[in-house]
């Protein structure tokens, strides 16, 4: 399983640079907002957390379709699916985790830079980073289900995003509300953050199982 993480990370960093593309997309999406909204710094500071969250959500959906597609194209997927149930679920968990390391974690690390650009306060940026740190793995885990469902389809890429977006909405809601709660005074930070963590844990458990079911069923 360590070998699987190592392999997937090596592929992500060595060629194509999936990690870098995700961060670039994140940068570009967030940088476009001020052009559309106008460069009002107060306004940007107010909507900053939401923009960062939406940008991170879109950026992490971007690479999801490759999660199993690449393995299917070269035939590796057969070897993964061949395993018994428990090993397959574990394999998919590890693959989702590796995917998060390659695409989700860089987004979390890029968040403070974008926080500066959006004129966000240090607290606000910190809160966004913390919620992203918990929320992006949830997106990767639930995204694995969509990627597994779409793996046999041509042009699955767009479909994955459409399938996963509704499921990712709770993550977005609680992530953003926790990030806002950290800066707006009366709202408590912890309740939405705990719900977000719970969602992340739930998806970490559910995602690999559901993805395994989809892959077992989808093999043709």
């Amino acid at each position: 399983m360590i070998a699987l993480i190592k392999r997937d990370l090596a592929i992500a960093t060595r060629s194509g640079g999936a990690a870098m593309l995700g961060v670039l997309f994140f940068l570009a999406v967030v940088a476009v907002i001020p052009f559309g909204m106008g460069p009002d710094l107060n306004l940007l500071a107010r909507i900053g957390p939401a923009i960062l969250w939406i940008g991170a959500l879109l950026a992490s959906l971007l690479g999801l379709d490759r999660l199993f597609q690449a393995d299917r194209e070269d035939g590796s997927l057969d070897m993964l699916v061949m395993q018994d149930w428990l090993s397959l679920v574990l394999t998919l968990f590890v693959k989702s985790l590796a995917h998060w390391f390659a695409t989700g974690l860089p987004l979390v690390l890029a968040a403070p830079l974008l926080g500066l650009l959006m004129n966000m306060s240090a607290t606000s940026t910190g809160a966004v980073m913390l919620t992203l740190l918990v929320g992006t793995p949830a997106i990767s885990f639930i995204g694995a289900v969509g990627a597994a469902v779409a793996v046999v389809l041509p042009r699955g890429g767009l479909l994955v995003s459409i399938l996963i977006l509704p499921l990712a909405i709770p993550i977005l809601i609680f992530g953003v509300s926790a990030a806002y709660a950290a800066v707006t005074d009366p709202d408590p930070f912890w309740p939405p953050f705990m719900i977000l963590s719970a969602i992340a844990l739930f998806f970490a458990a559910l995602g690999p199982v559901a993805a395994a079911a989809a892959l077992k069923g989808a093999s043709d």
Partner: protein
Amino acid sequence: MSDTTISQGWFTSLANPTRFLALSGRVLPYLATAAVLSLLVGLYMSFAAPEDYQQGITVRIMFIHVPAAWLAMMCYSVMAIASIGTLVWRHPLADVAAKTALPIGAAFTFLSLLTGSLWGRPMWGTWWVWDARLTSVFVLFLMYLGLMALHKAMDDPARAARPAAVLTLVGFINIPIIKFSVEWWNTLHQPASVIRLDGPTIHPTMLYPLLVMALAYTLIFFTLHLMAMRNEILRRRVQTMRRQAAQAIGGGR
């Protein structure tokens, strides 16, 4: 090539990567020494310069901010020229030059953004504003990163060369936008004070350290660029040799 004017003979001899390696190997030590020397002199001069009556000590950030911004643009110009070389003359080294300038240019752009931000915080009271100059430099930074991603996405450098060259040239329109943004739009960023038609407007005690630092930055750029180009040539050589090795193994014997 059949017609051999002197310049073209020189040009083609440089086109030979092996010759380039030998030549650049001889030039590099001098270049590196000059870069280090000018950097030391520049650093001394920028700390010896008097403090600005308006900006106080933060004016010293200018000595590393302004050259970084110049270099960010110059590096892109170098890439644009190299791209013309790729597209028009198909010069084998042009693509190498364009590709290896990317990370260096990105680093200088990043530095100009960063030092600008560190200057803006005490002077303007904010890390970042979306004004024309800053935004256009930020766009330049994104373009550097995008081009790097394009090169990384292709495992065969020969196939990435032409699309990257086209994209580089299209992106070149951003350079005049950066240069004139402070004049075309009324922005927070101060207008040019060194490169002007009517001569520089800043005081010589400020101007000279700035110019020396700019020279140092330029020399640093060329040193790093030459080194990176040599690496890239070796990288491609390794690649070809590996492909040849793959062909040879298990086939002929």
